[in-house]
């Protein structure tokens, strides 16, 4: 039972990372109709810059800020240089161009930081354990990640639902021409949305950094999981992203712990589990749990 509770929390923590990734993907898709494979590269940029900054300065907090900021700036740059030329293109062109960006970024980090994986340690202040229930110590840092992720998502929900900018974003996803007619600078709005998604991806990279080997190509497995989340939840839906990431994060974590205890094929099966879940969800809901019916 204690193991189950602990693994459940681990699942929620993975969900938070996925949600930070998926919300950016789904916003960018819902509003700009852009399928961005390079979203995982922003995750990687966040993790690398945070690890490097922390290593050089000794300050974890500075690393956090630098990682998120680096992803944000990278987001602005690639939006201005590449992405905005892709909004009107079909998904195939978007896939190919962002595939090119992945090749570039994966090689760039190798060039800058070498092929050996980097490490990002848990910050000292959060290195301890807390007893959530008596006799079950749980790492403080993981709890902090869950709390931070939840806070960021609440802020995002507030931004989209409750502010002027959010109103424009929602209007933009419904009717591009109308929002243009209202005198909103649509180009700047798109840049902002894309950079916001990049910031969230970078943040996810920093927060998940201590659990991962920080190396070239680290963004793609998480990107594919985030795709599964978006597909399960329904493209363009933030609510769906929340539901999808909880389903994927918890299923994946629990599967990895319990399936190997049931069968010898457990390790392989547990890696495949969430994809099977996705196939089942799609068989029932072809546009995801909260997707728009076509």
């Amino acid at each position, binding site marked *: 039972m204690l193991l189950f509770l602990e693994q459940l929390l681990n699942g929620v923590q993975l969900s938070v990372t996925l949600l930070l990734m998926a919300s950016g993907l789904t916003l960018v*898709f819902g509003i700009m109709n852009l399928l961005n494979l390079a979203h995982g590269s922003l995750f990687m940029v966040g993790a690398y810059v945070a690890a490097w900054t922390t290593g050089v300065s000794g300050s974890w907090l500075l690393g956090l800020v630098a990682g998120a900021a680096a992803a944000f700036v990278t987001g602005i740059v690639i939006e201005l240089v590449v992405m905005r030329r*892709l909004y009107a293109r079909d998904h195939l062109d978007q896939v*190919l*161009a962002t595939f090119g960006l992945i*090749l*570039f970024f994966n090689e760039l980090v190798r060039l800058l930081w070498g092929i050996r994986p980097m490490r990002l340690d848990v910050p000292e202040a959060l290195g301890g354990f807390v007893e959530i229930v008596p006799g079950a110590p749980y790492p403080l840092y993981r709890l902090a990640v869950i709390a931070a992720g939840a806070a960021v998502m609440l802020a995002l929900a507030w931004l989209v639902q409750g502010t002027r900018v959010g109103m424009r974003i929602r209007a933009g996803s419904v009717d591009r021409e109308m929002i243009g007619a209202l005198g909103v600078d649509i180009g700047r709005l798109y840049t902002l949305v894309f950079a916001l998604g990049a910031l969230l991806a970078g943040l996810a990279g920093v927060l998940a950094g201590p659990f991962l080997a920080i190396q070239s190509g680290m963004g793609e497995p998480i990107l594919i999981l985030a795709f599964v989340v978006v597909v399960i939840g329904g493209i363009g839906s933030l609510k769906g992203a929340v539901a999808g990431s909880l389903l994927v994060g918890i299923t994946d974590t629990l599967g990895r712990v319990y399936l190997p205890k049931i069968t010898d094929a457990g390790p*392989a099966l547990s890696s495949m589990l969430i994809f099977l879940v996705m196939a089942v969800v799609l*068989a029932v809901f*072809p546009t995801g749990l909260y997707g728009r019916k076509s």
Partner: protein
Amino acid sequence: MPPLLRDALPFLVLAVAPVVATLAGADWLVPVFTRMVVFALAAMALDFILGVGGMVSLGHAAFFAVGGYVVGIGSQHVAESTPTPFGLPGWDDLLISLPLAFTVGVLIALPFGWVSLRTRGAYFIMITLALAQMVYYGLVGLTSYGGDDGISMWWGRNTVAGAALPNRLALHFLCLGLLVAAFVVLKRLCAAPFGRVLDGARQNEARMRALGYRPLPYQIGAFALSGGIVAVAGALMANVDEFVSPGMGHWTISGELLVIVILGGIGSLSGAVWGAVVLLGLEEGLKEITEHWPILLGPLLVVIVLFARGGLTGLLDRLGSRRTQGGDDAGGA
């Protein structure tokens, strides 16, 4: 350029180049050309569903890897003299492993196609990617076949009808023969009612239904055929490299196949051969310049997507039509 020459030229290039290389004493170059042939075969099968059927699959690496493992697993059991899981003896002859790879590819592509084709557009892309990732993890989990490391076929390539292939050039022409055969079959299918239905569904699926068609079985069938051919390409790749690993199913392979199709020009089938020659040639060339070659290739892809639509075939057509002023043969796939 006349259509027949346009179609035949890339095949001719791949027939002549390895012979010239061998005569020039650079026979280490032959596998480079064979890789082009194998990737052309896989990309052509992808182009069949993408260009004609409008299905953007980002998961074809899965079938490539599965085909490779059909060869790897069969020959490992022969080399170790152990029975396969179903009690059958191993296999290490292309006459068995190629049809088997095709069959297994089709059998996996059928359910994948069924699930993926419940959706369209961006969903389809993401789902094919996810399903391929599932296969990738499945292969990593095959611990008795090397897990992460895969299978090194130190015992050598498959035989053909019991006889060993004499040299790399023989293997090359075997692959090239299969590529030509696939081209003829797929080209013919495009012009036949089967291909017309796929093409119609790509252009206007609702209208097809109103005319009395149910496109889904055709689309699933085309997806399965495509998966089977890509698995054959994977089986050939295993024989070229004498090595298989989960890396064959890595999603970047799916991405590369798409790039090849785009470079060659969507829907032209023979364009996939140009695409493979150019992309793999480019990779080899860039490797000579720097070990960090993807840092050049990546931005190059972005530029191609943004500024050179229609691919190389489109470019050749544009050059050709400028010279002859029209003479376009309407129709075709």
